[in-house]
């Protein structure tokens, strides 16, 4: 395989204030990956993503990144202050801070780029609005643009489908499919039925991480991964992704 390895997580234990959340987690992320992360509430999915973004450091074990690797991140419930005086366009531009650096200037080209991403997200008419005036879904789309604008090598999305309507959710998954030709994607979702038709592989996180090298997973496998999640399929699923075995419940 001549795939480029972006991140290598080895035997990591992590958590908060000496409270261990994840133990013995290992995972390699390659440039063409599209990983769906599932797991119960409080299982440690967001904590794992925070390790990838560098927001928190592991207690033990190691995480190594490819040189100059860039990350775009859409946080779950971001601690963003909606009263902060900043416009939608400026928020999207802030996604370029890694590229532009401490001395960054943001001129016509950057603003044009921001507008293109606003168009992709269907909110090009909101650019001048202050973020306090946005609905939950509009803010989510704005933050998605912020994550995308730097065209990162690794795109990390923590439950991007919360707040957004069904129509945009569908468009989002199609968009991610296209983006995956250029970048690795790690996405957390509770909507197993939907994500498995888009992702290439699955990781179950519940105190530790089980990696499943396929996008098809059975209830038995989920059980063996210690991943007690309810599988609910919404509407018609594009192709059968959840292999139903003979079960007795």
């Amino acid at each position, binding site marked *: 395989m001549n795939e480029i390895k972006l991140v290598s997580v080895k035997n990591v234990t992590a958590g908060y204030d000496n409270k261990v959340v994840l133990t013995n987690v290992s995972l390699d992320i390659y440039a063409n990956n599209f990983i769906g992360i599932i797991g119960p509430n409080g299982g440690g999915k967001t904590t794992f993503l925070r390790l990838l973004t560098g*927001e928190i450091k592991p207690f033990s074990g190691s995480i190594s990144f490819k040189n100059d690797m860039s990350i775009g991140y859409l946080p779950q419930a971001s601690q963003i202050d909606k009263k902060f005086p900043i416009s939608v366009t*400026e928020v999207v531009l802030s996604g370029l801070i890694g590229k532009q650096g401490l001395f960054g200037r943001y001129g016509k080209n950057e603003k044009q780029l921001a507008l293109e991403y606003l168009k992709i997200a269907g909110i090009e008419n909101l650019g001048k609005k202050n973020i306090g005036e946005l609905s939950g879904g509009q803010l989510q789309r704005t933050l998605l643009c912020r994550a995308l604008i730097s065209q990162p090598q690794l795109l990390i999305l923590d439950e991007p489908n919360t707040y957004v309507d069904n129509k945009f959710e569908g468009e989002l998954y199609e968009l991610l499919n296209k983006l995956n030709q250029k970048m690795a994607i790690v996405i957390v979702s509770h909507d197993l039925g939907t994500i498995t038709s888009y992702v290439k592989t699955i990781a179950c996180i519940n105190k530790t991480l089980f990696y499943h090298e396929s996008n098809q997973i059975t209830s038995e496998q989920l059980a063996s991964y210690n991943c007690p999640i309810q599988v609910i399929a919404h509407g018609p699923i594009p192709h059968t992704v959840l292999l139903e075995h003979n079960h007795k419940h």
Partner: protein
Amino acid sequence: MLLAMIKFFEYQFVQNAFIASVLLSILIGLVGSYIVARRLVFLSGGITHASFGGVGIAWYLGLNPIAGAAVFAVLTALGLEVLTQNKKLREDSAIGMLWSFGMAIGIFFVFLTPGYAPNLMSYLFGDILTISSTDVWLLVALSIITLIFYAVFYHAILFYAFDPNYAKTQHLPVVFINIILKIIIALVIVFSIRAVGIILLISLLTIPANVANLFTNKFTKIISFSFLVSMISLIVGIIFSYWFNVPTGATVVLTLIILYLIARLIISIRNSTRLTKA
């Protein structure tokens, strides 16, 4: 009347006061906007009051009280960072502790110092007419440093302030930006003590930016608008201190509150005419 006016502007201390209020307003515009946007009002109140510890110790030792205040203000700002690291202590609690700790030290040493201390009042309530030429030069230096810092790092500051966590994931040197800004806040506070005093200083840091924020959400505009508001209040403060001999701080605060109420009135009139038009 005209003659009195001309004479008024001929005094060195009046000229100093006017120059100082222009420079202070620049600093208040830059720093107050950041404080309000990031909700650091309580933190700034803590730094302000804790600096009284420095005033007290310097008073006792016969040193320059403002220098003492500067040391305490910067140490408080940095101390808060250390205390709240690893979330061992919640920030508002840490502020409460250092706030009263500084005040206690100040009171302690003021009482240890023999003799009556009438000038001490000017540190608590402010007297912009006592600003010396040295103070003005120090203000010039701080204004230049702060202006350059904001001009060079404007977007980094804005994006960091908006979402420090995201800035960190993008490898922005967030610790550097945070520490420099906290030190600048501490120094601006210390330089404002002369003008409005420790007790009322917080209004100068909060009200101008809030008046500005009623009319605009653009950070650069909030900065320039609050510069104007703070300028008006300080000039009214100088005039009242001179002619009626009241402490500058009280006049400045009352002016600011009136300006805020007028701004609210303008906004509500504008909104109601918009509604009736529609």
